[in-house]
Structures are given as structure tokens and as C-alpha cells.
């Protein structure tokens, strides 16, 4: 078969140097045409994302090259938001009128919040996009694997004043006795508590401006999802699935999304990766 194609193209079994040169030129021209055709096809969004990732890389390069003695200021910068639409799969969460299930409805809130955050220049990672149910640890791992990330777990309650939203952070906990500088997985949130509170306060302020009847201050609760997250982390809970009509919840979607995006934009300049005290100094997680 190869021999027949060789005849067809006029190529002999041992090509001359002139034929090799001609083949190389044709190959180079074809490659150039392909690249020139492919590049303009990229969407504007993809270009923006590419630009952001390059900027992000540029920001992170000095600290990476400077190794472990990098100054802490080099590791500042909030770039990534991990959004966690709660429940999913067989776990439907709260169930309300008109067949509303928390696990489905919260996906709408997460998608709108993602858009609002991306408009503010954040990179957003969702812990789930369909009807699956990652474990608590898998969800935390999405944030723990990132540098310069925050984590927001989103819920809809079955109780509470309809049309309100609350922000929760983990209660105070003693710093783990640490000699290694490693964060114990089951107490991963502890070093980030003060940052979580700061972020929570800013998001709660925005939510209470937008949704009358929401508390002015953030709440504390031992939310399981937050405990294993090694990043500033909050839980946002919207009330409630017990609305008279589904549209009442749908109307809250843009407001919740904008409030979270604004809160995080306000939080962004204050974000600094905390240090963990160890004997003889401190280390950053």
C-alpha cells in the first residue's frame, strides 16, 4: 500500500535531498496555515481566561522561584473561588412546595454566582455541576488543592424567614499543637478562621442590604463542610424551600449572586495567606 502511494506521489523508496527539502517546506506551510486558521476561532471569554491565567502565573512566578524563603506578601492574592452547591445525587437536601429540592435549586444559585464572580475577574471552580454528590472531603479537597482560594458552600434551608439569607462560619477552635507545619485534615479550617470571619462579615453585609430581614451579623455553626477546608470558608444559607411558589426563590438568584460577588471583591484586598505557628517560627500552609 505504501509503495502504491509512493508511486502516486512520485516518491521513490530512497528520496533525494531535494525531495526531502520540498516535503519539509510543504509541511511548514501547512502548519502555519493551520495555526493562522485556529487562533482567531478562540472566543473572547477564552482569551480573557487565558490572559487571567497568564497574569496569575506572572504573579505567582517570583514566589515560586524564590523558594521557601519567599516573603509572605508574595503569597497574597485571592484568585480562585470554589463554589460548593450542597447535596446532590440521592441526597436531595431540603424538600419543599412544588417539588422543590434543595440539591436542584441550589445549582441555579451556584451558576449565577459563578457568572457574577467571573465578571469580577475571579476564577471559579464548582464542586459539582450535575446531579452527583461528592463526599465532604472531596469537596474540601477542591479548595485545599488550590493556592489563593476561598470556599463557599451554598444551601437552601427548609426553615427561616422566606427571602432571607445567612452566612455561617466555624466556631472558634484552639490552634492544633503543631511541630511539622502541616495542617491536620480534620482541623484544616482552624488557621483560616479569622479570614473566614472577615469574608463572612463582608458577604453578610451585602446580603442584609439586599434581603430585608436577614441578620446584620454572621452566625457561627459547626458546619461539617467547613471543618476540613484549608482556605477561608463560609456557608451561605438561603430561606427557604418552603416558599409558596418556586418563583419566590428564583427571584433571589441574582441578588444572592451579586451579594457574594461584591462581598468577595471587598474581601480581595485583605486576603493574606495565614501562617501556622510552629516551634521556632511560623510557616504558611
Amino acid at each position, binding site marked *: 500500500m505504501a509503495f502504491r502511494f509512493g508511486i502516486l506521489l512520485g516518491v521513490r523508496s530512497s528520496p533525494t535531498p531535494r525531495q526531502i527539502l520540498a516535503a519539509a517546506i510543504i509541511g511548514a506551510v501547512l502548519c502555519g496555515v493551520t495555526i493562522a486558521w485556529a487562533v482567531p476561532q478562540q472566543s473572547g471569554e477564552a482569551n480573557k481566561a487565558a490572559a487571567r491565567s497568564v497574569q496569575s502565573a506572572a504573579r505567582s512566578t517570583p514566589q515560586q522561584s524564590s523558594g521557601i524563603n519567599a516573603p509572605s506578601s508574595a503569597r497574597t492574592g485571592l484568585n480562585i473561588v470554589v463554589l460548593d452547591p450542597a447535596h446532590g445525587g440521592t441526597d436531595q437536601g431540603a424538600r419543599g412546595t412544588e417539588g422543590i429540592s434543595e440539591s436542584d435549586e441550589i445549582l441555579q444559585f451556584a451558576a449565577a454566582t459563578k457568572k457574577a464572580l467571573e465578571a469580577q475577574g475571579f476564577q471559579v471552580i464548582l464542586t459539582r455541576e450535575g446531579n452527583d454528590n461528592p463526599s465532604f472531603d472531596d469537596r474540601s479537597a477542591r479548595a485545599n488543592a488550590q493556592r489563593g482560594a476561598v470556599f463557599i458552600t451554598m*444551601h437552601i*434551608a427548609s426553615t*427561616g424567614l422566606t427571602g432571607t439569607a445567612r452566612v455561617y462560619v466555624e466556631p472558634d477552635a484552639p490552634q492544633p499543637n503543631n511541630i511539622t507545619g502541616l495542617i491536620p485534615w480534620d482541623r484544616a479550617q482552624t488557621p483560616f478562621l479569622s479570614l473566614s470571619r472577615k469574608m463572612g462579615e463582608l458577604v453578610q453585609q451585602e446580603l442584609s442590604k439586599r434581603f430585608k430581614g436577614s441578620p446584620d451579623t454572621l452566625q457561627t455553626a*459547626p458546619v461539617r463542610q467547613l471543618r476540613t477546608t484549608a482556605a477561608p470558608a463560609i456557608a451561605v444559607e438561603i430561606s427557604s424551600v418552603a416558599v409558596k411558589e418556586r418563583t419566590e426563590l428564583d427571584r433571589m438568584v441574582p441578588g444572592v449572586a451579586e451579594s457574594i460577588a461584591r462581598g468577595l471583591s471587598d474581601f480581595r484586598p485583605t486576603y493574606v495567606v495565614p501562617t501556622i505557628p510552629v516551634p521556632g517560627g511560623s510557616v504558611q500552609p
Partner: protein
Amino acid sequence: MSPKWTVWLGGVLLAAVIAAALYFPALRRQVNKAKVLTEKTAEQARRELLPIAPVSTGDPMVKVKMFWGSRGQEGELLPVIVELPLSRDPGLRAKQVLNTLLAGPVDAESRTLPPDAALLAFYILPDGTAVADFSDEIRTSIPSGIQSEQLAVESILRTLEANVPQVLRLKILIHGQEADTLAGHVDLTQLFRVNAKDAAGTQLDNPSPPGSLLPAPIRKAVDKMRRATKR
């Protein structure tokens, strides 16, 4: 058949029809009642067999502070003073107050715990660590959400704090097992601080001898907690 007999037969049949019409509604009520009884879950049956916190007639009447939900303020607890015959034994006392908490206030909207949930067991270790084992309904019947679950746990903790000072820390189990969360939100893997005097993080550094009187699964859970805290 003579006309006389026909009249008699007709009369008897009419009487039978009237008697049946009167009896059938009562029969239906009895059938419905029997149906409800047979629909009882195994958990409910078990709970009925379990002794509710023993109340001795010799126990003194004590004013206890119960923490139920506040109707006026969303997500808040309100202390309610109730007079109860309470044992001096901390374990029995804790069972009595928790059963009263589960029985709920007069106003159903102020409930913090599901009405069909039950306290299956309660133990206090010598170091002040207590273990409360609730039936599965505390997980399946509670309204889902951070606020409602937090309120449920807080009402248990604050009621114990107000009435059983010997309890310093509480581990909540569901049906004898350690649970990750109450109903998907509030973390149950940790010990809850009950008494503010308790120094968090140091409470299990010098544990008293393990509670050998505890049932095996609960002892296992407590041992696991101790190991986790030491780590």
C-alpha cells in the same frame, strides 16, 4: 310460604340491615385504629419498650430551665422554666431533662427536636464527657438546614448546661453509631463543649479510666475521640 312468614322474614332482614348500618361505622373505626397500630416502626416499638427516664416519687420538685425555640425571634432559643421531679444522680437527671426537651413545649412551633425522636441512652464518664444516643428520627424527621440543626444541638447543650453541671462535654450518637452530621449540615464528629468552664483542647489530655460500663459501640466511639484529640 304463607304471607305471615313472608312478613316475619322481611322484618328480620330489615332488622339485620339496620343493625349492620349501625355497627359498620364502629367496625371501620376499629379497623383504622388497628391499622395505625400495625404501622408502627420498629424504632417506635423499641422506644415504647425502653424505660423513659425513671421518675421516682421521692425525687424533689426542681425548677429547671429548658431551651426551646423562640416564636418571636427567628433562630433564637428562649429559656422556659418548668417544674419537674429531678433525680440527684447526674445521669438520670440528664435523661429526665432531655426527655422533657424532646416531649417539647406546649406550642409546637417552638420545638427544636422532632416529636418522634427519642433518647435511647445517656452516659456520663468520670471526666465529665457525656454520650447521648438518640433514635434515628432525630436525623430523619428534623427540618433540613444549618439553622434548624444548629438550633436542635444548641437546645440540647444549653439545657444540659443549665441543669446538669457535671456534664462538661457531649458526644451525640445516632442509633448507637457515630454520625458525620445531624442531617447533612451540623458536624457531629466532634465533642461539643457544654460547660463554659471546660478548657477546650485540654479536656482529654489526662483522661480518666475508660468507661468500662459503656456498651461496646459507644466505648469504641469514645476511644476513637480520645485518640483523635491526642493526635
